[in-house]
């Protein structure tokens, strides 16, 4: 069992954004391919796993659905930590949720404290595209924001109509995988270093110490 598990790649995907923008609906659409009819505010966080094969690799994406209420942000610490990628959702028909993107990104970087602040994989998701009455947040504006914030990628979705939901998550997971690759290369090194390098250093140190000692003794 363990061997099989090791072959799979685990990814922690965190979805954040204002209250009521449709985070839970998006995730539900992706993991169970249905549109949630009963809308309930998420308390704390909810979790769902989805196994996908991307580029020949089996990925178990653990998708964390977080609470959108501002007051819950200080609880976010434990939810954000260890994330491989992060989707920031806003409601295209609610301009204030778009304006809050900054807050969300900063909060994530602050509480999640990923190692690579500048290059951490974010995906900006504009949800509720189905409510098109001419007043939606324009793609241009969203793209502009993304460009200003470290060339983030942007995608427009609708959980209700199932527009680009799959695409968005696939993109997100791919981004996480890219990051994972870097880490995967690093990880074994680190693991081996922990056992060997430290010893080596000690040896070197000992050698350095011993040699003069020996010399002194002699």
């Amino acid at each position: 069992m363990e061997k099989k598990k090791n072959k799979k790649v685990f990814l922690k995907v965190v979805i954040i954004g204002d209250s009521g923008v449709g985070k839970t609906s998006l995730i539900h659409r992706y993991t169970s391919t249905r549109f949630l009819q009963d809308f309930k505010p998420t308390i704390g966080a909810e979790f769902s796993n989805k196994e996908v094969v991307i580029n020949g690799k089996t990925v178990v994406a653990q998708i964390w659905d977080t609470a959108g209420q501002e007051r819950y942000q200080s609880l976010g610490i434990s939810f954000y930590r260890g994330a491989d990628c992060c989707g920031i959702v806003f409601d295209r028909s609610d301009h204030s949720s778009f304006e809050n993107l900054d807050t969300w990104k900063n909060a994530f970087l602050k509480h999640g404290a990923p190692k690579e602040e500048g290059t951490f994989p974010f995906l900006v998701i504009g949800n509720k595209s189905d409510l098109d009455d001419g007043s939606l947040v324009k793609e241009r504006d969203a793209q502009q924001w993304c460009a200003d914030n470290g060339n983030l990628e942007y995608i427009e979705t609708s959980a209700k109509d199932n527009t680009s939901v799959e695409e968005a998550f696939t993109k997100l997971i791919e981004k996480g995988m890219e990051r994972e690759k870097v880490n995967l290369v690093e990880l074994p090194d680190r693991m081996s270093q922990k056992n060997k390098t430290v010893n080596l250093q000690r040896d070197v140190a000992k050698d350095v110490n011993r040699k003069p000692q020996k010399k002194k003794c002699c």
Partner: protein
Amino acid sequence: MIEQLRLRRKKISASSKVQKSHSGKLFKQIMKMPRNKIQIRLSSRDASRENAKGDDSNYVDDMDENIGVITPQNIGCKVFKSKDYRTGRLPFRLHTSKSNKSLNNAVISSFSSLYEQNLKVRKDEETKLCEPHKNKSFAIKETMEDHNSDSEESNCEDVEPAFKNFPETLQLNNPLSQNLMEKKFSETLQSTRLNQLYNTSDSSSPIKRKNTDSSRHNLVFGRKIVQKVSIIATSSHKDKVDTINQLPKFPEAKITRITRECYGRLLSDLGLSGSSSKGTLENSSLNVVIDRAKLLKVLSRCDTSQLPPSICHCTPGDHGYGCENSEEWVLKVIENEDSSLSSLSESDFDEFFDYKKVSEQYETCKVFAFGKVHSAVNYEANDKFLKDFMRDISRTFCSYNLFKHTNILAKFLNVILAIHQKYPEMEYIQGLNFIVASLCLHCNEPMAFWLFCNLSENLQLGYYYSNIDQILKMANDTILELKLKKSKTPMGKNTFKNNHLDSFAATWALSLMSHAVPLEYSEMLWEKLFDSGWEGFKIIIDAILQVLKPQLSKYCKFKRSGKKTILVCSNLAGMTKVLGKLNKPPKSKEYAIEYEVSEHSSECFQLWEAIKCKLLDD
């Protein structure tokens, strides 16, 4: 009166030909309209002018669908004049769900029959057209235009009986068109929910026909309904103007969306709000942030006095304030307050519980709160507590039919407002709504208010809500601590600084688990909480963990240190999946029969049944 019908269709291809034959002003208007809409506007407001008018535009969609345009000619009406378009706008818009093609067709045919009807009746001077169907796919929308005169407002009271007969306005003179409509609708509206709505509204009151010309009568009703909604939504003419002045803070088109989503519901509420608990909120568009200020006003006018003290399935209490359980909780609170009292029995209830005082206190708080809400038009927008709460009001236990009844929502709102008045410094945290809603189920407003106040003082909820970090600490220190096993972290990340996770217990504590406990089992939660506060909460958490132990033990080890439980986790993904089940909303069981009980729900109910047994055993 204008009614806009917004639809997407395939079968009305004939209409596109009609569009081509159009010329002049109509066509120009079509071109001016936003390209992303297809609309029909049918007007009968100005009887001296043309009775009907329409304008239309293409609906351009990402999906490759044929777009059809409906023109007035197509449905047997004359072309309107452009002035009508500018000035004669009336506040309703019907729209059908985009995806329901057959319904759209039914709508079109019913519209055309209505129009034929209308043309006949037009000889009468004040013929007004209304399309009064109530169903899921329709939403009747009021544009924010100020068209109501003060004289119209004075009619408001007269309209009330007509309101109860709202569905009867469907009756038309022409048996053919009526049959056609009914047939089409019964064909298309097959969902049980809609049928139910349809039936209940039909049976709500006996048919009243004052006018011999029932069609005209109905049309007048239609117009009065328009007025009624506008009047109810805004308390006075002046208020309304103020509201409108304040609203454009939103982008203008957003108003139309908000109102479109909201007014369909409000209208159906208002139509039924008189007849006890039959007013329900539509489920179709709860995902949208509704026009909260308006909803607030509507709810504040609901008459909750018709509700029985307890709506739960428990045995009703002897004193008429709530169910038997809630009376027990009251006794427990009193026992805990005064250590000299112990094991109070039911007969002591009246002696120790001063209902009069409680109810007076509650009424004072409520009156103050409502005074605030009414004195400022957009009060809710400036009050963060209310603003946040109103977003959640339609999302509280929304899988339960109960929480779609306007009167129950109003009761819930009343209690929340009173609480907000009593503890102005308490911040709104998602979770509070579930606590209050769950309490409201078991007893009447003053009792629910009193119970909550005591609970909150006992558990220091106000303090914790303002300092979430503290509840996190408290939960970790005393209730449940999650730790990551150091040697083995299958997530493969070493980013956890101190190998402990602090999420679950804290979020559970914020809502006191009330969001996760199905309403059917809520009394066991409250019993423990009123009995022994946080200790009781710990007992419940322990029971849950015991029940989940077989599943959890694959992923983590149980440890006990003092009274708290420590979970040492070796597989975070597995553990979160098991524990996460608790956070998923349960679907309704007893309180909403029409909802399917999904696999998750039955599993959820099994889980809670097991937890209940566990608690009873202990």
